[in-house]
Structure formats: C-alpha cells, structure tokens
C-alpha cells in the first residue's frame, strides 16, 4: 500500500505475464503464454473465442491464480490473491459484463465500500458527491454523480467504470471488448477519451474482435491462439492479412466475397411492409423483399433499425402500418403467428432473447418447431436429437453432442445455435438482428456464408446491423437515421458512404 510499492514510478514493463499455464480439468486454457505491456502504450490482445484471452485477463487482474508462471507489475512480483487493494492499485479491468450497481447513484458506485465518513462514523453523502464529481471532472466524464446508475447509457457507464478504476490509483486498465455494445459515434468518443487518457499516462490493454479498431487505436498487438501466444508486433508493421492468419492459423486473409447473382425482378414478394410507424422509434417505413433477396437495415443505436426488424418478426406491434409475409398478414405483435407465416428470427442479443443457457443444444434448436418433434404435444427425445444433430452438422456447431447445455459452448457456436433455431422452421423470411455480434472471425464468415446459401434457396433475408461486414453481402441496404429510412445503397457501396449515411452526414452536400 505504501509509496514504495507504487506502480506508477517505474520504468520497464508496467505488467508482464511469464510462461502462464492454466488448466480447468482436462481443458488447457493457457499453455505457457506470455505478454509484456510497456507503460504508455495501448496494447491490443486478439484471438478467436477460446484462445485464452478471458483466462489471461482474470489472471492479470488477480481473480485467479495461474497453475504455473508468474505475473509482475513494474518488475515486482504480483501481490497475493487475497490482497485486493494492492491488485486494484496496479491493474483494473472494465469487463464486458457491467459491474455497476443499477439502483445506486453514480457517486456511490464510484466509492462503494470506501464511503466517506463524518465525525459520527456515518456516511457523509455531501463529501462523497463532491469527491465523485471531482474525480469525474479530472477525467472529463460529464455525468451527474447523483443520478441512479441505471439511468446511464452503456457508454457513460463505461466511462464511470474507467474513472472508478483510475481512482484506485491504477494506471494500467484492461478493456474487455468495450466497443461490443456501442455504436459508431460512441466508439469514436471512447477512442478520443482513450487517447486523452494515454496523454495523462494511462496504459491500456484493449481486447476486441474488430480488427479495424485495433488499427485505429492500438500501438502493439498480441495474438493468442489455442491457449498459446502466437505473436506480438507493432500494429503498423503488421498487415491485416497476417493478423487474421495469426488468429486463425491459416494462411488465407479475409475471403473476397463473390458477387451474388442478382435476384430476378419477377421473384415472389416475400415481405411487404407498408407505412410502418411506431411513435418516435420509426416512421413511415415501406419495404419489399423478394424471394432470394438479402436486404440490409443499417443504422446506429437509436436509429430504429432494431425495433423495425423486431416488428417484422412479430416481437413488437406497430402503431400504424402493415406487415405481410408471403401473402399472409400475421397478427401484429404475435410471434407464434409470425412463425406460422414463415418468419425465422435471430434476435438482437443471444444472452437475452436467443438462448436458454441451461437447456441443451437440442432443446434450444428445436424450440421453434414443437410440432415436428412428436404428435399430440408430446416430445420424442429421439426425434428431437435427430433434428438437432442434423442442424449441428448443417451449421458446423462444435460440440460432442446435442445434449450439451448451450452455456458450455463458445460465443461463436452459441450464435450458430440461435441461427439453427431460426432455420429449424424452414422460414420463407429470415430476420437477423446483429447476427455476428461478439463472434470470432471464422464463425462470422461461416454464419454470413450460411445466410447467402439460404437466400440462394429462395428465402428472403432482412439483416439489421451496423456491422459493415454483415451489410456487405446485402443486395441493397436501407439506411435509417432517427427512425426514418434516409438512404438506399445498392451492393458495392464504399465503407465511407455507408458510415456517412448511418451517421446522418452528407458527403457531397
């Protein structure tokens, strides 16, 4: 705790992990892996799901002890696991899962368990508010500290978590996929904030699935694969193709997308949306999707694309307007009706709406098609497993069998299960909402290729996303801004066109 152990005054690596091995039973999560982070840099850690990133983070933050190997901060051995305060002075982590307590105020979240006390040993709210406001001001986070934390957006919550981490004295911050839930503008603000903090002497370890972000913000990149360290290199000297190759272990770069055959103009209209309006969320949307066509709905958070897609899939009822699927008009806001009309849905957030974590892969994939599992409402376990096995093969889900609970799968494979569920009913129309969020590069390519394959068989597809890779395979993309469709782009658009349209900026006005 004393000044002699202060981590900020040293030269050499601010944090260092050496020959770390960690096993969970049979599984080797880390196999002699190492990483060295020098002060002042922004260091990227990348790898596919299951590469060992999360295990490394929990070892670097003192939540777990490595089986072998050592952690050093500023050249000194790491404190014992029980000395939480000592760890917090050296390293802090902003996890993907928020550690903010929603019912408490921002100030209290910042100073939880280290409240200010007055003469009577009672909590002094006033001085705590003052302290919290000062702290946020130091790091230029503009949030009212007396607001309940649940009122904050994802972005502000992250800033509060970062400020809290800094308030313990740590100048080495691990950001675990901080951009996963942010839209483009918020990501830009986060990066600005990170740059400003770097000027103030903060070192970051940045974990992300998005390679372009690494090229934008990071100085050095370390790649993990299959529990091992693969390479560490300055970002500028590492071409994208090599980075992807290091992550996947294959010599190929990102596959070039083949041009899709165009959809015949006389193909059946599978989805016919007219004048769809729901208050401020979206208004006056017309949309027609033909059999075999892939249509993108692009837009940032709050643009209404998600809500529109959910309305098409029957999760929400619109205030006005109609949705017609293959000539039928399912009851507004009724998922069973939409399913019967032939809509398959991959919902926004697999943890929230997509999966039932403790149930098996078989149960999860066949949830939408009870009628195919047996007669008179009975479920035949054999039939269910058969069906599930078919889908496991079809979607190349990595699992020992259909009886495994889905929470035992990696993120990419979980998303495949969600996709399998959407496909189980042989939909005429497939609605995908951010289908590749939090999924590794290979699974992403696989999922997108699958979407193309399905469209090739005559299914209409709607993809609501702000991921450029998701949108690239669309025949055309409708861009939404503040609830209205503002732009329509045919396949072959440039990245900057799409980003500008989503941000509501006109390039040549």
């Amino acid at each position, binding site marked *: 705790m004393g000044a002699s152990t202060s981590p900020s005054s040293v030269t050499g690596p601010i944090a260092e992990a050496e020959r770390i091995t960690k096993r969970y039973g049979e599984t080797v999560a880390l196999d002699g892996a190492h990483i060295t982070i020098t002060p002042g840099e922004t260091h990227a850690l990348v790898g596919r799901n299951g590469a060992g990133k999360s295990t490394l983070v929990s070892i670097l933050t003192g939540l777990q002890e490595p089986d072998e190997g050592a952690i050093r901060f500023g050249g000194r051995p790491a404190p014992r696991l029980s000395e*939480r*305060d000592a760890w*917090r002075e050296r390293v802090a982590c902003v996890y993907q*899962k*928020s*550690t*903010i*307590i*929603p*019912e*408490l105020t921002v100030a*209290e979240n910042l100073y*939880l*368990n*280290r*409240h200010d*006390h007055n003469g009577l*040993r*009672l*909590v002094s*709210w006033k001085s705590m508010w003052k302290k919290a406001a000062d702290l946020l001001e130091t790091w*230029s986070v*503009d*949030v*009212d500290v*007396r*607001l*309940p934390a649940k*009122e904050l*957006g994802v*972005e*502000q919550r992250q800033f509060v978590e970062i400020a809290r981490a800094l308030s313990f004295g740590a100048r080495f911050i691990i950001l675990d996929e901080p951009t996963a839930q942010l839209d483009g*503008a*918020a990501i*830009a*603000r986060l990066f*600005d*904030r990170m740059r*400003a903090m770097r000027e103030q002497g903060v070192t970051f370890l940045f974990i992300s699935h998005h390679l372009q972000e690494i090229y934008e913000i990071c100085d050095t990149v370390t790649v993990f694969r299959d529990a091992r360290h693969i390479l560490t290199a300055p970002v500028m000297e590492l071409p994208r193709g090599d980075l992807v190759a290091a992550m996947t272990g294959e010599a190929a770069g990102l596959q070039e997308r083949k041009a899709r055959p165009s959809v015949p103009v006389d193909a059946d209209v599978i989805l016919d949306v007219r004048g769809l309006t729901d208050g401020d969320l979206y208004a006056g949307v017309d949309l027609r999707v033909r059999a075999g066509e892939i249509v993108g709905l692009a837009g940032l958070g709050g643009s209404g694309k998600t809500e529109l897609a959910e309305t098409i899939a029957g999760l929400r009822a619109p205030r006005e307007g109609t949705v017609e699927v293959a000539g039928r008009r399912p009851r507004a806001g009724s998922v069973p009706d939409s399913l019967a009309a032939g809509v398959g849905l991959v919902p926004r957030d697999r943890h929230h709406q997509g999966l039932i974590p403790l149930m098996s892969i078989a149960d999860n994939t066949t949830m939408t098609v009870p009628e195919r599992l047996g007669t008179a409402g009975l479920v035949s376990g054999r039939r269910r497993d058969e069906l599930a096995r078919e889908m496991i093969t079809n979607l190349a889900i990595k699992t020992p069998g259909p009886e495994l609970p889905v929470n035992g799968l990696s993120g990419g494979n979980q998303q495949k299960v969600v996709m399998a569920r959407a496909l189980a009913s042989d939909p005429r129309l497939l609605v995908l909402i951010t289908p590749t969020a939090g999924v590794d590069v290979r699974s992403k390519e696989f999922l997108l290729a699958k979407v193309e394959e399905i469209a090739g068989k005559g299914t209409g597809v709607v993809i609501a996303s702000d991921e450029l890779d998701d949108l690239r395979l669309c025949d055309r993309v409708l861009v939404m*801004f*503040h609830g*209205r469709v*503002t732009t329509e782009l045919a396949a072959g658009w440039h990245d900057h066109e799409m980003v500008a349209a989503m*941000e*509501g*900026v*006109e390039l040549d*006005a």
Partner: protein
Amino acid sequence: MPETTAAPAETGRPAPKGSAGSRPALRLARLRDFALVPAIIAIAIVGQIVHPIFLQADNIINILQTMSEISLLVLAQALVLIVGKMDLSLESTFGLAPGVAAWLTVAVGTGSGLGLLSGFWAIPITLAVGVLVGVVNALFIVRFGLNGFIVTLGMLIVLRGLLTGISGGQTFFNLPESMTYLGSAMWFGVPASIWICLLLFAVGVLVMGFTGFGRSLYAIGGNVDAAKAAGIRTDRVLWITLIAASVLAAIGGLLLTGRLASVAAAQGDGAIFTVFAAAVIGGVSLNGGKGTVFGAFTGILLLYMIQNVLTLAGVPAQWIEALNGAIILTALALSRLTGGKTQE
C-alpha cells in the same frame, strides 16, 4: 433531409443523453420514498369521514400499537429483501422465540411449562432463539449456498412444529413479569412497544442510509459480483443480515407476547403474507437491491390504517380477512401503476 450531426465529439462534451434531461428522473427517484404518503393522507381523510374518532390520539395509538409487533417483521424482511434474499421463517420465529422462553420459565402445572429457569432469563432466551434461527438459516443459505426461499420455507414448518411440540398445541399463560413488561408498559403515556418499534425503524433508516454496512446490503442485492469486486465481504454481510432479521422477529414476538400476556401455539401463523405485502407496497423489490426502511414502514402503516377504517366502518369480522387480501392486491396494483415499472 437528415440534419447533419457534428463529427465525433471532442472530449468533455456531454454525451447525447445529457444529464440535464435526466434531472427530473432523479427528483422522482428520491420522491419514491414518500410515494405512499399521499395514500396515507387520503386514508386518514376517509377514516375521519367514516368515523370521527379515527384521528383521535387514542385511535392512532391503537393503530400503532397493533402494528408495532408485525412491523418489526416488516423491518426484518425489508433488510433481507434488500440484500437479495428472502426469509419466510420470520413468522415462525415470531412465535417460537417467546414460546421457548415461556416453556423454560413458566412454572410446572400451568400448561406445558417446565419451570427450569427464573423469569430473569426470559428475554435473553428469546433473543438467543432469534440468533440461533438466524444462524441456521445463514448456514444453509450462505454456507451451503441453498436457495433462500426453500430453506426458509422448510424452517417455517420446522419452527412452527417445534412450537406446537413444546407447547402441546396449547397456550402458555402466567408468564414471568419480565416477558410481559415491554409489551404492556406505558412510557410517557404511550405504549412502550410503539417507542421500541419507532426506535428500531429509526436505527434501520440510519444504518441503511448512512453506514457503509447498510450500503453494502444494497450493493449485494443489486449486483453481488460487483459488490465482491468492490471488496465487500458479501458472506459476512449476509450472515449478519439474516441473524439480525431473526432477532428482530424474536423481539416482535416478545412484544406481542407481552401485550397478550400469553404465547399461543399459532402466534405469528400466516403473518408472513402481510409482511411481504407491506414490504412490496412500501417499494422494496423482491429482486433485491431496491427499497428503503422508511418505505417499508409506510407500507405496513397503510395496511393497518385501512384495516382500522374497515373496523370502524362496522365491516363484520368474518369479512375482514377477504377484504384484507383484496386490499393488498389493490395496493400492489396501485403501487405498480404509480411506480410505473413491472413488479419484480
């Protein structure tokens, strides 16, 4: 055409959802504590119209005294709910704790008393039984990680059975004076049990709002992982909370015993439903991390005022129970409407 937004903001610029827009929400959140005050005033007015004695000091003291014992159960339950658990066994502890004290201190010959100890020991025994029940609950819930609902449901049955067992299903009479004092004494012209109840609630407000310990209950109930990450010893806090709740239930039982000068085998039977209803109406969330001690107090106060109005209005005693249930449901629906959010 869409308006053009500024390029990514420079540092320091407020995020789009600026704090200015959210201020009213802040004020509302702080007012939630007093959400039931208008309802309480409204009932007071109705009561006064129904019967002119409603607002007289005697009647108000009567209401406060009848609720003082059970309100301690509400206080206990509020603490347990805020920390993210629940304790159904409180109503049995409410009967068992003074029951054991009576069993050991009442002279042989009256009921099933054993007469083993002098009357001096009655209160220490009551409190010790409270501690013991809390320890057993905490052992199962915290140490063995069992579900609090099912553990305390089991305890509810076991403890009730124990009381029936030691009392032979009968009522203990001829209690030592030390047991009846608190429930029957008058301090400054007001029953001691009202003072005790108000004092304990005041301590509850202070602890929950102004001590690190109290705040850690909110943190644990709101997000236990975050609380752990902040260095809170979550297990220890849970132990203390569960034991404190059982002790409060024992004190409540002692007050009722004193007022009635007896311990019935069914003392506290069925009270837990009113307790939960009062806590939830008072704004305590069943999911933990949310609610205040003051809110819980207004919840039980409102329920007892309504009951009192019904009695004054001459509603036949046979119908009070059905009306009570209906009132609880109505109050829950109302608090849902005024609270605006789905009850969790």
